[in-house]
């Protein structure tokens, strides 16, 4: 009995992938970290794919969304499954840098373009020939770190301390921030690490304060970013506190409460699109997305914007590729890759101008300094 059930279940499992996706349609394979440590980033991304239209350029689009649990092995398995079973025309994902880096080989071997939603610039490093197939939508750490350095320099800050996640996100930020700070003549005099779910960061914060930096940057994503901030405030730290764009979601504001007042962070324009001048082209696109998102899922998260931007890139590139080949073919995937490389798209996080040497395509228009004022994001003009 059990045996028969198992067989039926297995048969069902392996036929869904094939039966569910007709070859004539455009298939987009998505893998996001909707569970595991990066869940707070992955969930708004996953939600966003629920909002997307099912046709692009008059062709039917299937969004096949899988969860990789923030695990690199699973992300690669997902990528291989999407390429091998679902015959996708393009991969989107994953949420975090290690998973995205790990997927590169699978994408390149499957000759399938991939749009990552992770931070590190290493994913689209032009020096690596494999990245010919790889694109990414989020602003690179370097771009954001520069914004912080500029803001610090303007505020007359000479020394800074850093406390960040003991993971790829925290490591990436630390490396980029050191570089940007050096350019701006700011010294990084203390570096501390903590884990996302740590119950206490007292030790790290005491050490930071003992070094007496003019400002502290917290390299964290989501509500865990509040832990060091609250500790810094509780221990009477008087300098400026900076956060990264990783915390730009409403839950962070809820948890950090009044201890967040005055905190500065760089963020994509969609976070504060209401405060942008009408002349900014991003405003209209961001408004459209955020309205849709908030109607269905509650308050906006900038991570959902990365997912939406990948859709916007595809909706620009797919019609171009359709002129050259039919979906489901090797030629279509190659054409899509080429079309993505010529994309010039206004999106929620800025304006993407892709070139063979820049597969991210964002510039200074993709970052704004934002201040937290009484539980609200306020654009620093």
């Amino acid at each position, binding site marked *: 009995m059990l045996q028969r059930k198992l067989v039926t*279940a297995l048969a069902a499992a392996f036929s*869904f992938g094939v039966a569910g996706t007709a070859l004539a349609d455009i298939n987009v394979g998505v893998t996001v970290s909707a569970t595991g440590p990066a869940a707070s980033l992955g969930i708004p991304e996953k939600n966003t794919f629920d909002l997307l239209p099912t046709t692009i350029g008059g062709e039917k689009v299937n969004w096949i969304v899988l969860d990789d649990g923030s695990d690199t*092995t699973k992300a*690669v*398995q997902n990528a291989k*499954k999407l390429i*091998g079973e679902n015959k996708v025309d393009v991969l989107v994902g994953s949420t975090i840098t*290690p998973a995205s880096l790990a997927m590169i080989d699978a994408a390149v071997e499957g000759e399938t373009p991939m749009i990552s939603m992770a931070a590190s610039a290493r994913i689209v490093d032009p020096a690596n020939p494999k990245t010919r197939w790889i694109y990414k939508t989020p602003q690179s750490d370097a771009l954001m770190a520069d914004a912080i350095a500029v803001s610090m320099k303007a505020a007359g800050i000479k020394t800074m301390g850093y406390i960040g996640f*003991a993971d790829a996100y925290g490591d990436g930020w630390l490396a980029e921030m050191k570089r940007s700070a050096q350019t701006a003549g700011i010294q990084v005099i203390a570096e501390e690490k903590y884990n996302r779910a740590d119950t206490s960061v007292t030790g790290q914060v005491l050490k930071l304060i003992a070094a007496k930096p003019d400002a502290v940057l917290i390299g964290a994503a989501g509500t865990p970013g509040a832990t060091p901030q609250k500790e810094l405030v509780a221990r009477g730290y008087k300098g400026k506190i900076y956060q990264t764009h990783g915390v730009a979601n409403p839950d962070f504001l809820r948890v950090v409460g009044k201890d967040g007042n005055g905190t500065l962070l760089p963020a994509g324009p969609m976070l504060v699109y209401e405060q942008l001048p009408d002349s900014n082209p991003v405003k209209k696109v961001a408004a459209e997305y955020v309205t849709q998102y908030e109607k269905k899922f509650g308050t906006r998260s900038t991570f959902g914007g990365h997912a939406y931007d990948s859709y916007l890139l595809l909706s620009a590139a797919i019609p171009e590729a359709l002129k050259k080949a039919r979906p489901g073919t090797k030629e279509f995937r190659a054409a899509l890759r080429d079309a993505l490389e010529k994309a010039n798209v206004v999106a929620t996080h800025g304006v993407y101008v892709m070139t063979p040497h820049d597969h991210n395509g964002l510039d200074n228009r993709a970052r704004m300094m934002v201040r937290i004022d009484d539980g609200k994001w306020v654009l620093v003009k």
Partner: protein
Amino acid sequence: MRLTWSTAALAAFLVVVAVAPVAAPQFWVTLGNYIGLYSIVALGLVLLTGVAGQTSFGQAAFVGLGAYASAWLTTQYGTSPWLTLVVGLAVTALVALALGFITLRMKGHYLPLATIAWGISLSFLFGNLEFLGGHTGLSGIPALAIGPLELKNERVIWYLIWAIALAALWCTNNLLDSRPGRAIRSLRGGLDMAEAMGVDGARLKIVVFVYAALLACISGWLYAHLQRFVNPTPFSIVQGIEYLFMAVVGGAGSVWGAVVGATLITLLKQVLQDVLPQILGRSGNFEMIVFGVLLIVLLQRARDGVWPWIEKLLPRAPPPPVREAPPLAVRHHAATDGALLEVRAARKQFGGLVAVNDLSFEIRHGEILGLIGPNGAGKSTTFALISGALPLTSGEVVFRGASIGSRPPFEVARRGIGRTFQHVKLIPTMSVLDNVALGAYLRGSTGVFKAALRLDRREEALTRAEAARQIARCGLAAHTFDAAGSLPLGQQRVVEIARALACDPTLLLLDEPAAGLRFLEKQELAKLLRTLKSEGMTILLVEHDMDFVMGLTDRLVVMEFGQKLAEGLPAEIQRNPAVREAYLGGV
């Protein structure tokens, strides 16, 4: 070879492995490769946890050592992956030796926790070492290549992965069916029994631990070159728990449990990922919830895992017959001057309690000596002092002119002292033949390497023949191939005696052999002991049952309150008023 169901099933499995990469869809091949990798690690756990009883959560860290060693050397120095495999194995062996040396001394629940501790330490270390790519990871690892053939294609590397997995399976299976294998099985449930058979338990545990670690390392090396990217998450404690999961769910008692477990867990996750969104919609993440629930239900239904359940469906192959073989080398039993064993002023204190108080007596060649006394008189402690299970506080135990007091049990056994246990210690799932063959451990020399490569068949044939002879000697020939646990208690005690005889002892120590036996069983046992004596065996009998002892022994030593109360012929003892007062309650 006759075609049995099991060999047919095995052949079918091999055909699937051989044909799959040619015939199966791409993604099935991908999954198959991962299943192969996981099976290799789970196989180590079957041996370490399922068979030897040493729970480890840290295997993922060894996988990481193998993966990182190769990833770092190939990307930084362009070393050949085949060389890095050797380096990885060497590093893993060293780390496992060091960790095993420290942690395997731990008993009970200290060991699993210690494995969690170093599992976490190592995986966090990977993330904090700059040269290993930190938390972000190392990319650009080359694919494996055999000469000009690059194993980049998953359908090609399949053969390497499964060749290694099958080789590991073969070796582990061989190992379990061998001299060291029987010893490894005996590690479970404490070292007492193993050490009494002459097994150096602490050393053997480390050997098994290193074996499991090396398998994990090989899996990691394959992983690095399959994935061509490494970062710390696949080697975290969470993955370590998952490997243990695979072994237990598959059935940690059998090598096939590893493959079944790895397959089941991998496929289950895949199926849930596909099926659940169809049923429950895409809004939540139900995979983890349903995964956990299914496993709980599964373990409630089949707590020994899935493999024993499959095995029941396959008809059992008959055990290979025992062939005639020349006897194993026999120890020199010639009588030495004086007594065979002398206990000289032996003393054992537990804190303030003196359990054995300067006790002295001797055992002479060829006699049956009975050691009796009321409950709590110190008989069992004395027994433990002679067998080496407990160290002496002071005094001496001299066997054939050499001091054996406070020596570990396996050294005592090596000198020719065999023993049985008050509470029967057999491996219940193993056949009587294998249980008795374990007794002959000291008379063989096959090590793990030889056993794994099946170079031990000649010695194994001799051992089996010897075990069969001892079983026949004790009158249990009809039960040679029965599982030891299926016999009634009386016969289990006799199996223990046969096992003790298999080590060719000069002195046989029997710890309350008549306890719990029925009248007829006792008579049978007495008959057997008399026969053994007539064949020249010396026996020390610790007993509670006066009737049993009186008719059987040559001399008696009576203990009370840790001291010797009386010594003499049974008839004298029976008349001794002090003994009657103390032991017989003044009857």
